[in-house]
């Protein structure tokens, strides 16, 4: 089994490499000349050429790739053109915000989504099921940013329950921290709950129709044990996969939510960087995102081998 784990980790390495190469390619696609951007439009051709040489842009593409990968290996993800810091430090500063937001939303999404999905599956084809599924469908169809804005208008401007923007660090004031995050995290999870409920429902339905559920009942086990132990343990496998997807989706969704609620997170950083044409920052952040997602997938994959004994010996 340990060999399997090592194998899976080893498999992630080429993916990481691939992601790095893709991020590098991103830079190649960029319109305009980074050297000109740095040196300034008014600079003389010699100055521009000098900048280009210092950036290594006059070398062949493969050499540039090598240079790029070398920098990465040393932990150098590039520096921002607009902000006066390295990509890594810019991200590190904003990491707590995004972590708080996605963490909180996941903490809401997981129990609620699973519970709703399980209930809908158990009461399939009754009004409970239809209601839940309709709600989930609506949740998946409405644009998050739109609802977010409407929510801000309702809860912040009209009702004044929550601050409409800004973030308070947890260590500074836990109560205010929560208050500043409840609405954004709530909106973020609203859309994910729908997805998770649907996934859990179909996973549970699939499992509940399996023969071993009948065997469990034939043994005289109560419904609670049958569903809670036998059915759920199997549906868990799919739920684990779903959680991985949810986490990635939450990170993606945080981009828009942070923008609407003006939370100084990584998502907001990347959008501002794009609008300001701060390409090294965009590229660096994308790369960090990439590594994060590979790590998430790897973790889910490993969790999978713990949950499903059938996968372990392959």
């Amino acid at each position, binding site marked *: 089994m340990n060999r399997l784990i090592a194998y899976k980790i080893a498999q992630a390495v080429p993916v990481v490499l691939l992601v790095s190469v893709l991020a590098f390619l991103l830079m190649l696609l960029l319109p305009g000349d980074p050297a000109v951007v740095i040196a300034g439009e008014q600079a003389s051709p010699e100055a521009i050429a000098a900048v280009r040489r210092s950036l290594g842009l006059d070398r062949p593409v493969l050499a540039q790739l090598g240079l790029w990968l070398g920098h990465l290996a040393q932990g150098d993800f590039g520096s921002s053109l607009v902000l006066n810091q390295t990509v890594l430090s810019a991200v590190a500063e904003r990491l707590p915000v995004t972590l708080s937001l996605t963490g909180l939303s996941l903490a809401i999404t997981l129990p609620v989504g699973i519970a709703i999905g399980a209930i809908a599956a158990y009461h399939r084809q009754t009004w409970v099921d239809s209601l839940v599924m309709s709600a989930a469908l609506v949740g998946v169809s409405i644009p998050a940013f739109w609802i977010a804005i409407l929510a801000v208008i309702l809860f912040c401007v009209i009702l004044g329950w929550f601050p409409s923007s800004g973030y308070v660090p947890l260590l500074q004031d836990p109560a205010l921290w929560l208050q500043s995050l409840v609405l954004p995290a709530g909106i973020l999870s609203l859309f994910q709950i729908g997805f998770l409920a649907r996934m859990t429902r179909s996973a549970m339905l699939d499992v509940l129709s399996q*023969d071993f559920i009948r*065997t469990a009942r034939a043994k005289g086990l109560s419904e609670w044990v049958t569903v809670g132990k036998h059915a759920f343990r199997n549906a868990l*496998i799919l739920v684990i996969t779903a959680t991985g997807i949810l986490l990635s989706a939450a990170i993606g969704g945080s981009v828009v939510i942070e923008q609407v609620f003006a939370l100084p997170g990584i998502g907001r950083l990347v959008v501002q960087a794009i609008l300001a044409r701060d390409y090294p920052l965009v590229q660096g952040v994308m790369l960090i995102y990439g590594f994060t997602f590979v790590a998430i997938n790897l973790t889910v994959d490993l969790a999978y081998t713990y949950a499903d*004994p059938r996968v372990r010996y392959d």
Partner: protein
Amino acid sequence: MTALVSVQDLTVQFRTDRGWITAIEDVSFDIAEGDCLGMVGESGSGKSVTALSMLRLHAKGSSRIVSGRIVHAGQDLLQAEEAELRRIRGRDIAMVFQDPMSSLNPVLTICDQISETLRLHQGLSRPQARQRAIELLDLVRIPDARRRVDEYPHRLSGGMRQRVMIAIAIACRPRLLIADEPTTALDVTIQAQVLELLRELRAELGMAVLLISHDLGVIAEFARRVIVMYAGRIVEEAPVGTLFRAPRHPYTEGLMAAVPALDAGPNDEPLRLQAIPGRIPDPSEPIAGCRFGPRCRHAQASCHAAAPALVSIADGHRLRCTPRSGGSA
């Protein structure tokens, strides 16, 4: 003397796209203590439906029991409370299903799945249950039980999984074991082993066995008494010898004749396979008379007009056929 389980006038319906259809109708039979009953019929004849009804294992929304009683230890199982039913399942009446791979939970160990029953019905502690589980695996002749008990179902072969299912079923020494096509999904050699095992366990534990199969060979090998089902009804019930040597119902006759013979005809020519003409009726289409009528060689006008009743024609021999049981044309 009172039967262990007495099924009386059982009628079960299923919900389909086309409405409620009757799966089994007026099914009545008794199982005595230590009985060895076989139930045979084609796919769709209602054998499994009957078996599942005995423990009320049907899906709640899509099936309903229209009428009938299933009497065990003085109470009607069909009317019993859920809690009471759960006490009986696995403890007094146990069941073994057809496909051992899908009938065992893939993410739980063998030990866990056997121990569950023991801890539930006999209140054993975890270590006690584990020990007993190992003993049970030995009883069903699984080699290396001590190691095997901690494995997952997918690591075992089909025959071994079925033995595990049997171990789970007999764990609490049930009075009745219902085996629904236990050998159908197995190779022939393994089939023989599992049947042998069932026979031995029956003798050792003194339990009654209801063996359901579409395979006449299996029934002939194992059962003492046989019930033949067709299109949701019992058409004949007889001791196994009588049924195979002198069947009275045209359908049973047809079944026996359809078994390929190894010997040749009178002039040494190979014998043709005798098939029963026609097909089993669509359960959603009601038939006024005998359900086998349309396919029966001996059918008379009265057969199509009214459905014959199941009558006793000899000791232990019941028949549902007007012309054959002496009814007039």
